[in-house]
């Protein structure tokens, strides 16, 4: 912004001294941004083997089962869910630490899902990862300079004598003292170690960063520092983020778009405002109602909690039909028979539920009858054909309006 421009109210607030001292508002959505990453129908099945000499495969853990989404260039998609829902596996598939069982991972116009390690080498520069626990993801026997500089040497980005200045520059970017390059990880606090992990991920100027629970191991006051740092580097370098976390509040702050996973599937994906204010999937509603909330309690109000009974079922033998039905209060016959498709119900809102609706306003009849070509009990209707393309990443210009039951468009 040029200084001659008159300050509007909004920009005046942006320029307040608190902003420069490190206060950060939530990231905004840029609907027009091109996708840097498009994932379609991604699947990862881990074989379960018998013990003994002849190890037969007796089943598969369906850790990720048909997941599709997009991460916009320079934007952020949040991936939330309980432990064991497959969110970390998804992150590892995208960084290609694992080879997916099926599906495509389209990165910058190229499918990287089945590339060999050799073919992947140049791409490793572009996709980097930040790990949850900074204490175990940094080699205790290497100095910080060696850790942050290693990617530069491996990829021969700069001549050897230029590595140190570049490392110091990176340390400065993440808010560490550049003179500390010859110290070891144990000499730093948890928050500082996470900054080292971020510096290492930034070394090769990636286009996509997969952040797997980047702040959950940190103290509350330090969490905010690291989140703000991630926002700064995102803005400065235009990096797309896949932000994996179980903390719904942190994800809400960092990600303009959020996907909720349950047992290997995405059950709801929407922009932040829709997902947090008007969630349509009963699981999202339960998840949100479970978060203890300081400000609500402070003013005396307490949201009614939706109790989810029991635990997440085993991903080896997931329930038939809808995977959430065993814990869902809305579940009916159709839910056991037909798997609800992830269908678009708003400009930037998709949900996978037969009885999708706002909290307390669930429809009596399944909303998916037409889409799936079934009747209210889940039995196939002769001659009915599913009428939308499902499991497509991204959002289309038309969607199913739940109020009218008709197609609507922008």
């Amino acid at each position: 912004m040029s200084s001659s421009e008159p300050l509007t109210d909004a920009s005046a607030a942006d320029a307040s001294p608190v902003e420069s001292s490190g206060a950060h508002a939530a990231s905004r959505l840029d609907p027009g941004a091109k996708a840097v990453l498009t994932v379609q129908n991604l699947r990862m099945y881990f074989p379960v083997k018998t013990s003994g000499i002849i190890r037969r495969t007796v089943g598969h853990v369906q850790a990720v089962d048909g997941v599709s989404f997009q991460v916009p260039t320079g934007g952020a998609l949040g991936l939330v869910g309980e432990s064991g829902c497959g969110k970390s596996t998804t992150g590892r598939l995208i960084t290609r630490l694992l080879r997916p069982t099926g599906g495509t991972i389209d990165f910058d116009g190229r499918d990287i899902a089945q590339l060999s390690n050799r073919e992947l080498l140049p791409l490793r520069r572009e996709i980097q990862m930040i790990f949850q626990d900074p204490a175990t993801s940094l080699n205790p026997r290497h100095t910080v300079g060696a850790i942050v500089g290693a990617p530069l040497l491996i990829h021969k980005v700069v001549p050897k004598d230029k590595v140190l200045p570049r490392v110091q520059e990176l340390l400065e970017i993440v808010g560490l003292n550049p003179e500390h390059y010859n110290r070891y990880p144990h000499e730093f606090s948890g928050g500082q170690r996470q900054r080292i992990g971020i510096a290492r991920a930034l070394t090769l100027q990636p286009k996509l960063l997969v952040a797997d629970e980047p702040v959950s191991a940190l103290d509350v006051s330090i969490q905010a520092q690291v989140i703000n740092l991630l926002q700064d580097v995102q803005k400065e370098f235009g990096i797309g983020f896949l932000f994996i976390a179980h903390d719904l509040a942190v994800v809400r702050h960092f990600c303009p778009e959020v996907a909720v996973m349950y047992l290997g599937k995405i059950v709801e994906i929407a922009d932040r405002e829709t997902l947090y204010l008007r969630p349509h999937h009963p699981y999202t509603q339960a998840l949100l109602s479970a978060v203890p909330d300081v400000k609500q309690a402070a003013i005396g109000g307490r949201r009614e909690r939706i109790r989810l009974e029991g635990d997440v079922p085993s991903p080896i033998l997931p329930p038939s039909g809808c995977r959430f039905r065993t814990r869902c209060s809305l579940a009916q016959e159709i839910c056991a028979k037909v798997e609800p498709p992830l269908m678009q119900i708003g400009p930037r809102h998709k949900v996978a539920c037969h009885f999708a609706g706002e909290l307390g306003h669930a429809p009596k009849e399944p909303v998916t009858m037409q889409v799936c070509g079934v009747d209210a009990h889940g039995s196939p209707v002769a001659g009915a054909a599913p009428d939308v393309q499902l499991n497509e990443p991204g959002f289309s210009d038309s969607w199913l309006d739940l109020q009218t039951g008709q197609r609507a468009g922008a």
Partner: protein
Amino acid sequence: MSSFLSVRDLVVHFPTVDGVVKATENLSYELDRGQTLGIVGESGSGKSVSSSAILGLHRGTNAEVSGEIMLDGVDLLKVNDETIRRKRGREVAMIFQDPLSAMHPYYTVGNQISEAYRVHNNVSRKQARARTVEMLDRVGIPQPDRRVDDYPHQFSGGMRQRAMIAMALINDPGLLIADEPTTALDVTVQAQILDLLQDLQREFNSAIIIITHDLGVVAEMADDVLVMYAGRAVEYGPTKEILVHPEMPYTWGLLSSVPDVVGDTDAKLIPIRGNPPSLLTPPAGCAFHPRCDHTDKVPGRLCFTTLPELTPARAGGDHTKRCHLVNPDEVYAKEVLPEIAPEMSEEDA
């Protein structure tokens, strides 16, 4: 009438080769039966150390503990080891953060829970087992008569924490100390466990100390809050008072550095600068001054030289705070609230 639990001037020091680690300094609080106290603070603020002193867990170490811990009229720091051993698990019980490391992997869950019962009650194995199954059922473990013979690794995280709660409550203790009981759990499971604790508290009329770093948990569970920083109480009072009218900049920092799931997305995230101090050489004056944004509002560099006393807050009541600021309520309303809750401050205006 004095309270069920009353802690006065509790001091816990650990002498080390590098000097004395002052983990807890002059901590005082009171708690009645049926009430819940939330102790909030970052790692290393002394919240766990001060609570394990109640259980006498520092006995036999080189820790120097002084002060007074009155539980039901008995000073737990004065009684001998045998007495405290008999009280431990029976009158005071503790739930630990990580149930997997708090349970023995080689013994079945039922074995470990019934041991806690048999130590304090002269009963047969069979009776203890029946009581264990009853408790497992009470904390919501499905098929308790079968799961009682499972090993800890066969339980999920939430079920392990339920088993820990069953173990802690099997002797119907008057005081339950829950040290980060839900930090390792998912939000849905956390909600189940918090509900369970509240139900059991109503049923047994026990006092609960819940140690956490999550103000959200405190907001839902606790009647009173004690905010600790560098081994000292910096703010203490009724939960609602403290969350609505916090008067200590560290509490402001805790409130402004956590994002929210509801409310305005214009709300800003303001981290607390720097890192928690070393307890070996805490900063002079107010321990929070190196990270505080408001030291310039106090005349005469008082924050840097003099430790503020725990004084009644401006709002009055039982609310006390440790800060030199003369008008903390005005500073909070003018400088902090508009940043973290824009819509709330507009309503007030």
